């Protein structure tokens, strides 16, 4: 088993365990004080969401054009699972402020499309992309999240769609480790190339929440992040290249009403 494969399995197991732990936590909470059978004693002031899903970067332009042109990499090779948390605070009956952090990362082995070494062996390298957007956004529910019955009961709606818009920053890392070809000399050299930094991000999303019980929602969302990493420093590893960090994420998660 390679180190990469082991890391993948560990990450997948951690993600699954995270969901299960959250589900186990959410179940008993639903039966605790502050809620009745299928309703809460007041509208929730906040929610916490644990979500996972699938992230597909646009992977175009800048370093991606270089990598996809020279190496056996396609757009789908930068797709990955993602995992994150959202904390929402209700600010109006249909509005929430969402503070979110998310992580997605791909790690893909490749080789030169056009070149072999002098032993007819492929010239291999590994390309890694990691993105961690930290965002604040406003979520607007297209229907009431629930309704008050009497003064001390709040019944959550079964299904509520929403849209969101916000922004923040994204920490990113683009790294390539392995062997490369100097197209001037055609020498093959080993190197660890990376660029990392922070970029501003604009986030838009749309999704829906499905109420599983009075405390727990199933939340699904499609998000688009628009971000561009600055070109690396003139003497950096990817001098002059931009890093297009934009992409689409599909999220599905469990939301706990607090």
């Amino acid at each position, binding site marked *: 088993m390679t180190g990469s494969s082991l890391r*993948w*399995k560990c*990450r*997948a*197991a951690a*993600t*699954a*365990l995270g*969901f*299960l732990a*959250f*589900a*186990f936590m*959410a*179940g008993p909470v*639903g039966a605790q*004080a*502050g809620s*009745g*059978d*299928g*309703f809460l*004693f007041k509208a929730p002031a906040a929610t916490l969401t644990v979500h*996972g*899903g*699938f992230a597909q970067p646009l992977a175009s332009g800048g370093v991606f054009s270089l990598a996809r042109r020279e190496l056996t990499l396609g757009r789908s090779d930068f*797709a*990955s*699972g993602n*995992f994150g948390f959202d904390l929402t605070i209700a600010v109006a009956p249909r509005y929430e402020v969402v503070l979110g952090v998310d992580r997605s990362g791909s790690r893909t082995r490749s080789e030169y499309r056009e070149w072999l070494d002098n032993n007819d062996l492929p010239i291999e390298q590994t390309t890694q992309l990691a993105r961690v957007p930290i965002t604040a956004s406003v979520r607007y529910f297209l229907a009431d999240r629930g309704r008050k*019955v*009497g*003064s*001390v*009961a709040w*019944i959550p709606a*079964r299904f509520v769609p929403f849209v969101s818009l916000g922004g923040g920053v994204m920490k990113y890392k683009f790294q390539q480790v392995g062997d490369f070809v100097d197209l001037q000399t055609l020498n093959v050299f080993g190197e660890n190339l990376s660029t990392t930094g922070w970029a501003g991000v604009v986030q838009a999303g749309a999704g829906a929440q499905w*109420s*599983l*019980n*009075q*405390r*727990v929602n*199933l939340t699904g969302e499609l998000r688009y992040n628009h971000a561009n990493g600055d070109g690396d420093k003139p003497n950096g590893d990817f001098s002059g290249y931009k890093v297009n960090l934009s992409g689409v994420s599909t999220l*599905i*998660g*469990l939301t706990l009403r607090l």
Partner: protein
Amino acid sequence: MRTLLIAAVALGGSAFLSPVLAQNAPASTARGLAWVGCWEAADGIQSQGRVCVIPEGARDLRIVSFDRQDKATESTLRLTGERTPVSAEGCTGWEQARLSADGERILVDAQLQCGDSPQQTIAEAFVITPTGFWLQVRGTGIAMVANARVRLYRAVDSYASFPADIRAALAPQVQEAEYARNAISRVSARDLAELESMGVATPVIDLVVAASYPSSFVIDAEGAAAATRSTGEAMNTSSLNSNPFYWSNGFPMLSYYDLAMLENCMRLQMFSCGMGNGRYGYSVFGAGGYRDPFFGGYYGGYNGGYGQGQGIPVVVRPAAPPSDYPGNRGGGRAVSGSGYSSGSSGSSGGGTRSASPRSGNTGTSQNSGSAGASSSSGSGGSGGSASAGSSGGSSTRTAKPRTP
């Protein structure tokens, strides 16, 4: 992708782990069976007599009420949902009784006009509490139901003192009724939605919720003392609580009730509407003058039977006031070298406690050089000396040395 797949599997599993919105049990008590039997007051209102509920036909309940002299009056509560004209004791109007879909709540609406007085709106709910009591919730108002009061009944222990015909009518059904009471579930979102669709008034819904979740809510008998004085009824006041406005920020229903009451007072200008005197308790007809026709039994029907008392005016508030929350205490702490400290320098007033050493008397402990927990000298010893003399009032709780 494997991450995604495993997460999806986990998520799918978690969806099953989380209980889906509870479904109500089948309507096993669709005839109001849970109320069948004989009941006696359990709320301390001594003037209340007893009442027996006997099923009659498919949807009717025969109500036989006994006053304190065991004089019986009878009426029929029709659970058909149809409006029934009411005309008695100078009051006219209608009433409408319905059974909830699961048979676990009886809802009664009525509108009455007595003489020249404005028409009164009445909404009632009969609820079996988780402990098997029968809670009768009554809301009254003019334009809308604006206040609420409750009566509480428990099933009688013995039927020996009831007339033979009633015993004979009930005998085949009492056991089944007990089963039905035990099977009643707490009010659910589905029940609330039904109540809402029926147009049940907010104060009544609140009390139905509070009765179902006694660990989360207190049915606060604010104003009960005033009612006792005014009506001459003896009442158990152990549940009286402090000013409910303390909670007005978190629970606007309190101020809502109050505003509604004030509005009625200003509009009608014919009632004694002292805001400190039964502000939640009395209907706008008030106990002082025009007696509430339902609770007073003016038209002698089923309400007159088991509603002969005035009922306890109530509001609903959460079970724990803010000062009882563990995270919001009075500043008590443990300080290295000083031991436990209440966090306040004053020691007078109700509820203040002072400490004494476990052995010896307070005088000797002072002389032994131990530091007093409330002593200003505070020399840092581990044994606390007493300041018992600082307490005041009969409610002050103090500690004393434990005898060897």
